[in-house]
C-alpha cells in the first residue's frame, strides 16, 4: 500500500530547538545554566585545562565502550559515537568515532527534555534508551543510544551519551536488513526514549521489552551494559571535574567551547566568497527488484558567516527501506562539516550547528514521515545526502587558496553490504557482515591523490579484518582481495582506489552459504568528482554460478579475473537475498573516491607511474587521461600532447587539427 503518514506519529517527528526554546519547553526540569559573564571571566589557563579534560572524558567513554562491547563494529571498526552535551542537549564534544552517529544525539536529548521532564523526570542515576530515528540519536533502528542526565545540586547539569550499531533488533530479515521491506513495519519497531536505568539500577521490565525483539538478545544485553558503563565513566569523571573547579566554571567552559567552535567556523565561512553550490545525489534502488532512480537535490548557499542547506525538490519518500529521517539528513551534513570544514576546529557540534540552516520538506526521502522504511537509512539516503553535501562543500572550499587544501572529493560512494549466514566450518550457525568495503577510496585533494583503500570519511578510524581472520571465522576462501585498477575517479589528482574481494564458500558442512546483498551505486556512480574531476567507478557485484574454480585449483592455478573463473555471470542488482552455492563465486567491488580537476591536466609522469603500479590501465590512460606510453613505460610526451588535443576537440565537437606540422 502507498505510504500514508500515521496519525499520532507527528510528535515523534522531531526538529531540534535552540537552547532558549528547549529551556522553555523543558519546564518540568530544573536546568543548570550560566550567563555570559561567567564565560567572560574564564581565564585561558582554566579554560584550556578543563577543555582538554572534557575531550579526554569523551575519549575515555569511547575507550570504555570499546573495551566492554561484544560487537566487532564497535571493538574494531570504531563504528560508534560518544558525546558530552550541555543541559539543553547541545553537543559540547564528540569523540573521533563515527561522525554520522554523533550528528543526531542532540535531537534525542532535546526531545527527551521536552517530553520527559515531568514524567519520567530526571534524577541522579537515571539513563534513557532510544532507537527511534524520528526522535534522533541514530540514523536507523540498529543505532541504539543510551544517554544520561548529569544531576548536580538537583539540577540537570549536562548529558552524556553513547550510541552504536546493534547487529539485530528484529524485523523480517536477519540483521534487521529487510531487502524486500516496504515500510517501517517490516523493520524493527522504533523505541522512543524510555528510562532504562533508574537511580542506578537497570529496569528489567524495560530491558526485557527491548531485548525481546532481537535474534541475538544476549549480545544486545552485553552491549547495553557496555553503554551504561561508558556513561558511568563519564558521569564519575564529570562529577570529579565539577567538584574540583565548580559547576559554574565547568559549565562556562562547555559553553565557551561551543562558542569557540561556532566563532571559528563562522570566521572560516566569512573568509570564503559568498555563493551557491548545487548538486544531485542519486540512488538506483530502494528495495529488492526496484529499478527506479531517486534524487536528493541540494542547493548550498554561503552568505556571510553562515551556510544554508536547501534540499527542496528532493524526491518524495518511497516504499522500500532506504529513506532516512531528519536525523539521517543531519547525519549526512555533520560528518562533512566536521571532516572538511573542521579539521582544525574543535568538534563541538552544538556550536557548529548554529552556523547551519537546513531547509527540507517533510515527506521526502531524506526527511521522511512515519511509517516510511528506514532500515538501511545510514548507508542509503543519509549516505547519499553526505555525498551531495561533500560535493557542494568541496566546491565551496575550492575557491579559497588555503581552505581548499582540506577538501576531499566524494569518498567511497556507498556501502557495499554483504551479509553471510549459515553454518560455519565448525558446524555452528553464524551471521556476519563482511566489512571489507570499509576500505573504500578517499576522494582526491587539490594537491594530491585521494588515499587508496583509505576508508570512509564519516569514520576517521575505520578498519577491515585480515583475510585470514575472515577465513578462520567464517566458511569462506578468498581468491583475492585487492585494489582495483581504474576504480579511483580520474582527475588531475586521482581519487583513491576502491577494492574488490572475490571469495568462494569453503568448508561449510552444508556446502554453500546464505547471502544478502545491499548496495546502490550500480547503475550510476555515486562518488562524484570536483572541478572537472571524474566520478569513481560504479559498484559492481557479480555472482558466478557453477564456476570452474575447483578445476583451476586442480590444475595448480589461482584465477585472477572473472573471465578465468568461468561459469555463468549473474550481475547483481542492488538489493538481493540469495544462496551462494558450493560451486559459486562471489565478487564484490566497492567504490573509490572521486577525482579532482580535469584528467587531461594530470602530469603524464604520474599517469605513467599509476599504469606501472596497476592503479590505472593503459586503456584508461589513453581514453581518459590522454596519455600514451613508451615501451619502457614512461610517458610519450609528443603522442600525449596530440592525444589530449584530440580529446579536447572531441569534447567540444570541433575537428581535430592536423598536428603533424608540430
Amino acid at each position, binding site marked *: 500500500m502507498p505510504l500514508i503518514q500515521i496519525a499520532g506519529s507527528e510528535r515523534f517527528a522531531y526538529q531540534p530547538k535552540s537552547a532558549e526554546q528547549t529551556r522553555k519547553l523543558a519546564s518540568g526540569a530544573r536546568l543548570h545554566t550560566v550567563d555570559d559573564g561567567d564565560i567572560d571571566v574564564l*581565564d*585561558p*589557563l582554566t*579554560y*584550556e*585545562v578543563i*577543555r*582538554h579534560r572534557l575531550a*579526554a572524558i569523551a*575519549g*575515555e567513554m569511547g*575507550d570504555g565502550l570499546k*573495551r*566492554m562491547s*561484544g560487537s566487532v563494529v564497535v*571493538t*574494531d571498526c570504531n563504528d560508534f559515537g560518544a558525546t558530552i552535551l550541555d543541559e539543553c542537549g547541545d553537543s559540547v564534544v564528540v569523540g*573521533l568515532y563515527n561522525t554520522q552517529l554523533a550528528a543526531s544525539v542532540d535531537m534525542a536529548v532535546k526531545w527527551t527534555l521536552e517530553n520527559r521532564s515531568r514524567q519520567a523526570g530526571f534524577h541522579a542515576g537515571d539513563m534513557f534508551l532510544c532507537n527511534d530515528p524520528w526522535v534522533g540519536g541514530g540514523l536507523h533502528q540498529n543505532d541504539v543510544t543510551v544517554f544520561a542526565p548529569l544531576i548536580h545540586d538537583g539540577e540537570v547539569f549536562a548529558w552524556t551519551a553513547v550510541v552504536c550499531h546493534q547487529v539485530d533488533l528484529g524485523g523480517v530479515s536477519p540483521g534487521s536488513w529487510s531487502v524486500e521491506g516496504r515500510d517501517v513495519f517490516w523493520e524493527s519497531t522504533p523505541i522512543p526514549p524510555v528510562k532504562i536505568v533508574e537511580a542506578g539500577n537497570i529496569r528489567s521490565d524495560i530491558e526485557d521489552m527491548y531485548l525481546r525483539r532481537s535474534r541475538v538478545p544476549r*549480545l544486545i544485553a552485553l552491549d547495553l*551494559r557496555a553503554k551504561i*558503563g561508558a556513561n558511568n565513566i563519564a558521569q564519575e569523571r564529570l562529577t570529579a571535574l565539577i567538584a574540583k573547579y565548580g559547576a559554574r566554571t565547568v559549565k562556562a567552559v562547555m559553553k565557551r567551547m561551543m562558542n569557540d567552535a561556532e*566563532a*571559528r567556523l563562522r570566521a572560516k565561512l566569512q573568509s570564503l566568497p559568498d555563493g551557491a553550490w548545487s548538486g544531485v545525489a542519486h540512488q538506483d534502488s530502494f528495495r529488492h527488484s526496484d529499478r527506479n532512480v531517486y534524487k536528493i537535490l541540494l542547493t548550498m548557499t554561503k552568505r556571510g558567516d553562515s551556510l544554508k542547506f536547501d534540499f527542496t525538490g528532493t524526491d518524495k519518500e518511497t516504499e522500500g527501506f532506504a529513506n532516512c529521517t531528519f536525523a539521517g539528513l543531519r547525519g549526512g551534513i555533520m560528518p562533512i562539516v566536521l571532516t*572538511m570544514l*573542521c*579539521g*582544525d*576546529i574543535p568538534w563541538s557540534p552544538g556550536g557548529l550547528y548554529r552556523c547551519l540552516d537546513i531547509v527540507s520538506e517533510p515527506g521526502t526521502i531524506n526527511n521522511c514521515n512515519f511509517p516510511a522504511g528506514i532500515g538501511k537509512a545510514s548507508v542509503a539516503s543519509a549516505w547519499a545526502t553526505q555525498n551531495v553535501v561533500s560535493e557542494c562543500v568541496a566546491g565551496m572550499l575550492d575557491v579559497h587558496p588555503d581552505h581548499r*587544501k582540506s577538501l*576531499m572529493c566524494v569518498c567511497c560512494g556507498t556501502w557495499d553490504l554483504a551479509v553471510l549466514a549459515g553454518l560455519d566450518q*565448525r558446524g555452528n550457525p553464524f551471521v*556476519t557482515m563482511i566489512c571489507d568495503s*570499509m576500505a573504500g577510496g578517499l576522494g582526491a585533494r587539490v594537491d*594530491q591523490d585521494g*588515499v587508496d*583503500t583509505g*576508508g570512509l570519511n564519516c569514520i*576517521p*578510524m*575505520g578498519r*577491515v*579484518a*585480515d*583475510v*585470514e581472520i575472515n577465513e*578462520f*571465522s567464517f566458511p569462506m*576462501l578468498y581468491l*583475492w*582481495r*585487492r*585494489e582495483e585498477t581504474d576504480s579511483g575517479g580520474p582527475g588531475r589528482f586521482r581519487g583513491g582506489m576502491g*577494492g574488490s574481494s572475490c571469495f568462494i564458500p*569453503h*568448508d561449510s558442512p552444508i556446502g554453500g552459504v546464505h547471502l544478502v546483498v545491499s548496495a546502490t551505486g550500480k547503475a550510476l556512480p555515486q562518488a562524484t568528482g570536483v572541478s572537472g574531476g571524474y566520478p569513481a567507478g560504479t559498484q559492481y557485484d557479480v555472482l558466478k554460478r557453477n564456476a570452474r574454480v575447483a578445476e583451476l585449483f586442480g590444475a*595448480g592455478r*589461482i584465477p*585472477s579475473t572473472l573471465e578465468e573463473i568461468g561459469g555463468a555471470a549473474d550481475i547483481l542488482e542492488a538489493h538481493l537475498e540469495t544462496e551462494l552455492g558450493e560451486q559459486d563465486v562471489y565478487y564484490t567491488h566497492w567504490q573509490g573516491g572521486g577525482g579532482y580537476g580535469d584528467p587531461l591536466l594530470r602530469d603524464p609522469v604520474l599517469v605513467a607511474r599509476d599504469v*606501472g*603500479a596497476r592503479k590505472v590501465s593503459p586503456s584508461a590512460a589513453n581514453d581518459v587521461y590522454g596519455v600514451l606510453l613508451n615501451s619502457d613505460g614512461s610517458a610519450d610526451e609528443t603522442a600525449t600532447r596530440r592525444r589530449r588535443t584530440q580529446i579536447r576537440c572531441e569534447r567540444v565537437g570541433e575537428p581535430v587539427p592536423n598536428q603533424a606540422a608540430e
Partner: protein
Amino acid sequence: MTYAIGVDTGGTFTDGFLASTDGMLVSAKAHSTPPDFSRGFINVLGELASAIGSSVEELLSKTEYIVHGTTSTLNAVITGEVARVGFLTTRGHGDSIRIMNLEGRYAGLDPSAVQNISRTNKPAPLVPYRDVIEIDERIDHKGAVIVPLDEQGVRAAVRKLYDDGVRAIAVSLLWAFRNPVHERRIREIVQEEAAELYVALSHETSPRIREYTRSATTIINTQIGPVLKGYLAPLEEELRAKKFDGSLLIMQGSGGCVQAADASKYAVGTLGSVLTGGIVGCLRLAERLGHRNIISTDMGGTTFLAGLVRDGKPSTTTTTVLHQHQINTAMVDVRTIGAGGGAIAWIDGGGNLRVGPRSAGARPGPVCYGEGGHEPTVTDADLVLGIINGDNFLGGRKKLSKELAAEAIRTRISEPLGLTMEQGAAAIYAIQNAQTADLVRSVVVNGGHDPRDFVLYSFGGAGPVHAVSYSADLGVSEVVVPLGSTAAVFSAYGLASSDIVLTAEMSDPSNFPVDPVTLNGNFEKLEAELAERLIQQKLRLANVVFEREAELRYTMQMAEVTTPVPGGMLGEAEIAGIGASFEQLYERIYGKGAGFSDAGLQIITYRVRAVGILPIRPDLAAHERAITDPVPSSIRKVFLDTRKGWQDTAIYDYRALGSGSKLSGPAVIEAPTTTVALPEGFAGVVDTYGNLIIRVANSG
C-alpha cells in the same frame, strides 16, 4: 673476579655501566657517534677501563658478558636506509601491504592529526609494486594444501628479482604459520637459484595469524637484518681483537637479551632495544624499594614516554606501530604520549592557549637554547618561572637564556591573551601538568588499572620538574625520582642487570577448550625449540625459567587477550582453568560484566618465554648518610603553583644531600641530571640509594 657490562647507545650519549662479581660498580658516559655507533661503544669501554685503572684489553679479558642496547635498527627504519627487499606472497594477496587493513592511514597518529582526515595519508608501501610477486599456491585455515606450489613460477620470480638487483627476499604466504611447507620449499628454490640471496620466511619471523601484520613484520625484518648484522659483526670482531672472550648480548624490545648472532636473525626484536634498559633498571629499583605497581615516566627534551609495571612485571605488547606500519614483535609497552619539554605553546584559531602536541624537537629546541627557536616551549616556561636554573641546567652543561624565553612567551602567548608575561608562563606550566595527568591516566585506565594503586617513577631531564604536580592530579600515592650515582646511566645499569629472554610462538587457532594433546604438543614443541636455542647462547646461567602464555578471545572478536598458562602436562581441568583466567583478566581489563561467555572462546596463539638468569646481578650504589639537616644553597622566587603565585623557595644542591635528608615544599632540588620541583604541601626524603621519595596527597 669477572665483570658484566651494560652499554646503552642513545641518540646523543652512549652510557656504560660495569659491575663485578665482588660488588664493584662503575659508570661512564661518552658521546654517541652516528652513523657508526660502534665508535661510541668502544669509547665508553675506554672510559670504564680508565675509571678502574686498567686498559680496555684487560677489562674485556675479564668480562663475562656485555649487554648492549642499540638504536641501529630503529634508526635505519626512521632514516629509510634499509636493504632493498623482494616480496613473494600468495596470488591474489599482494595488495595486502598496500591496503594495510586501511588502518595504516591513521595508525600511531596524534588525535589532532586523525581529526584532520583530509591531510592523512598511508606511508609508502613497504615494498614497491615492481618488487612484489604473487605465486600460485594456497593453503586453507586448517593447513590443508588447496593449490600446490607453482615451483616454476617461484623460479621465474626469483630470477627476475635477482636480475633486477634484489639481494634479499621476504616470503609471506597465507596460512604459512599453519603449514609452512610452501614457504620452506620457496627457500630451497631460492637457494638453488642464487645461494647468496637472503631469505626470510613469515612462519619463522612471525608465526602469527593476520597476514598483513605478519607480512609487514617479515619485510621489515628482512630490510633491517643486514643493517644490524653490518653493525654487530665488525663490532664483535673488534671486541674479540681487544681480547674479549665473553658474550656480546643484544637487548631485545621484549625485556631480555640474546646473543648478537641471534639478534640479527630476528632484527625486529631489537626495534625496542633502547627503551628496554630503562624499564629493566626500573624493575630492579622497584625490587629494592618494594614497589609492585609502577607508572614509569620519562620526560626528556623531545618526548614523554610512559610504561607500566604491574605485580612486578612490565606490561608488554605483542604488536607495535612503526611509521604507521603494524608489526608483530614482543615489546615492553612504552608509549609516547607527549612532546616532553620541547612541547610548543601556541594560540589556536579561536584565540585559546594550547600546549603540544607539536614539539620544537632537538633542533632548534626551546627558545632559551638560543639555537634559533622562536616558538615558546614548556622548558621556556619552566625557566621563566624560576623552576629550572639557566646557569645550572643539567649540571651546568647547557646555558639557557631567560631573556629569550621571556620575550617569546610575552609576544606569542601573554600579550595576545592579555596576560602578564609571568601569567602566560604559569598557564603553560599548569596546562602541561593537567594534560600530562589526562594522558598518563588514559594509559593506566586503558590497561584496566586504577592510578591510585601505583607509584610513579619520574625519569628524564624534564620529568621531575612536573611530576609532583601532575601526580597529585593523577592520584598516585608516591613519586620516586631516581637520583643517586646510578641515575645518570640508568638504562646501562638496567642492561647490565638484565636476563636472557628468548621467545617462541605459533598460531594454531581453534575453538576453546582445545584438546590436551594439541595444547601440550604445541607447548612442548615451543619449549624444545627454546631449550635448544638456550644451549646455543653458550652462557653460564644462574637459572632458567619457562613462562607460557596463550592468546584467547571470545568468538567473533578481532583482538585477543594474552593469558598466562601453567607449565607441565595439562589435563582438561587445567585447560578449563586457562579459560577461567582469560575471563578474569578480560573483566579486569574491560570492566565487570563485560565478558561474553555465551559467544564461546577461541585460542589463537601459543607463546613461551625462556628466561635465563645471568650470574651477575649488580646492586645499586649506596648513598652517603646525611649528617646534618639539609641546607638550601640559595633562596629564589619560584612560581610552582597557580594558587600561590611567586614564593620564596629553597633551592637545594642534590650533591649536598645525604640519605635521610628531609625536604618540604616549596623547594627545588637541582641534581646534575635533572631538577625536582616540590610545590608547597609536599614533602620528600632522600632514601638509602639517593633517590628522592615524595609522598603525594591526593588532590583529585
